[in-house]
């Protein structure tokens, strides 16, 4: 891994990488001077009022997707037919700003419902409680929780409350981010894009009619076999602040970034797409320590502001590296699955799969954020 300042910028610019991430000097300077002139200007956004953004987004979602509805006086979306008779419920939730996570994964074969907090803030326990109540058909509910202190505490509190009323709840805490052990918002690793695979596997198992223990077991199996690492080319702009949440110079990138613009593990000079892909992939594979011949699912996830073109460039290198390690890609996903508002950047997820997980990930799903036929 390159420590900051170890490679002079000019050397890098002379390298032969034809990468979307490397700007010619003159363009970089132009961008820099432009960015100086727009400092302190309010960002242009399709937002009426930052206080209303989550509320208006949720109404826009239900208007777009008639198969989901919003529970009155909450920020909770559920399947229109929830609770589904005879089926274990699978739910999740967390701060907004990560769309399509989580509401976008509501539908057949994935989530029964999701609670949306304010931007980058956990939903409160009463919202989670309403979610659990609305999705329990009597067969119990699996709560898929990303490992952030607020999410965990509020979900746990809600679970205790509904358990007092007789609802069975099982939980799985997703902590796939290999970049940091503790962060500004967590003790232990953060839960990031690997969560989507947990939604998919648990949702498919529940759709088969499996009981709560079985649904939890396959969800945990994904958690035990998945790793993710992300990076940012730019900071994101939260509706409330209206400006970049952290200062990232035009010629630097941040590795090991979370999904809230919280600091990563290392800030370095701009690297080529291939070099970045290698940094991320090697970190994830080091952590997973897979045997040769292992089949994997990979995800190249966009952070919200990066074009698909660049995500495919990353995927090209990722698949090459997977092959170099003697691993076999069973399925490769590319797209915006768990975003960080308008942040530019990407994360790479690798999950080892066995026959059971392959079957579950291949099962039909019909949601706005992911469709498998």
């Amino acid at each position, binding site marked *: 891994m390159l420590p900051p300042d170890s490679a002079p910028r000019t050397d890098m610019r002379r390298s032969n990488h034809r990468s979307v991430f490397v700007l010619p000097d003159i363009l970089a300077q132009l961008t820099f001077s432009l960015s100086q002139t727009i400092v302190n200007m309010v960002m242009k956004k399709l937002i009426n009022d930052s206080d209303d953004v989550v509320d208006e987004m949720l109404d826009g979602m239900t208007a777009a997707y008639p198969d989901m509805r919003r529970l009155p006086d909450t920020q909770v979306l559920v399947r229109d037919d929830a609770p589904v008779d005879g089926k274990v419920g699978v739910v999740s939730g967390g701060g907004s700003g990560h769309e399509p996570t989580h509401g976008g994964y509501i539908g057949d074969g994935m989530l029964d419902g999701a609670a949306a907090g304010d931007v980058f803030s*956990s939903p*409160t*326990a009463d919202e989670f409680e309403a979610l659990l109540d609305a999705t329990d058909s009597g067969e119990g509910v699996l709560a898929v929780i990303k490992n952030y202190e*607020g999410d965990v*505490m*509020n979900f746990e*509190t809600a679970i205790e409350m509904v358990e007092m009323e007789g609802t069975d709840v099982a939980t799985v805490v997703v902590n796939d981010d290999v970049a940091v052990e503790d962060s500004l918002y967590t003790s232990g690793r953060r839960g990031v894009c690997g969560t989507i695979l947990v939604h998919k596997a648990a949702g498919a198992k529940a759709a088969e009619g499996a009981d709560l223990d079985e649904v939890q077991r396959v969800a945990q199996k994904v958690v035990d076999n998945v790793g993710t690492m992300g990076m940012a080319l730019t900071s994101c702009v939260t509706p409330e602040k209206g400006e970049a949440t952290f200062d990232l110079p035009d010629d630097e990138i941040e590795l090991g970034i979370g999904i809230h613009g919280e600091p990563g593990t290392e800030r370095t000079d701009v690297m080529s797409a291939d070099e970045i892909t290698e940094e991320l992939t090697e970190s994830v594979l080091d952590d997973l320590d897979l045997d040769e011949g292992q089949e994997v699912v990979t995800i190249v996830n966009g952070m919200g502001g990066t074009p698909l073109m660049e995500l495919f460039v990353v995927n090209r290198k990722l698949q090459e590296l997977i092959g170099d390690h003697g691993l076999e890609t069973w399925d490769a996903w590319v797209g915006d699955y768990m975003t960080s508002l308008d942040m530019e950047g990407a994360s790479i997820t690798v999950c080892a799969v066995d026959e059971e997980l392959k079957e579950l990930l291949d099962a039909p799903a019909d949601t706005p954020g992911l469709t498998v036929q």
Partner: protein
Amino acid sequence: MSGDAAAVVAAVEAVAERIQAERSHLTDLDSAIGDADHGGNMARGWAEAADAVADLEDPDAQTVVKTAGKTVLSEVGGASGPLYGGSLVFASQELEDGVTPETAVAFAETYLEKVQDRGDASVGDQTMVDALTPAVHTFKKSIETDDLPPLEALAKAVAAAEAGVQFTVPIRASKGRASYLGWRSVGHQDPGATSTLYIMEELLETAADHLDSEVPDVDASSPTIPDAEAAGE
């Protein structure tokens, strides 16, 4: 409304007023080590809780505590909502038969246990647990072993909480936002322990009013020392 329920309603109102009065002090403590929202969030949450319990029709004590807890839980949000409010809701189970010295001890123990579990914190982590633990242990011993009158037991518990708050100053934070400061957290008084002390002081004042007595003068020259061993029971 039963007498103990009325006293609990009065206590929630007193806590709301006190937190409001200490709002900027709590925010100052928090801005030194965290994200400067403890005073504002707690003041808003407890004000809503006071309104919510005032609206209850002929409640019992358990319902009052549960309602206050639920309101704090949803209005304060973040981690403080579950810690302060969620723990109240959970511990309210112990008040099914109203407030007696015995149920108050059970309530206090369950509340402490819930805060410890939820926050995964122990004595010495520079958190609210440092104020709560000596308070709850002292209260339990004063009632169950020393057979003290409830008001005196509560006064001793408040003195113990105060010692616990002071204990947070010279130690390093290992849980909560302050823990990211590492060694720089040494020398800071924990805002959560401080607001916990305020809540307990208001419980004592309200209990004294309710029993038509003066707040007893407990011997401050032999303060109860936080006992880390016993915390793990």
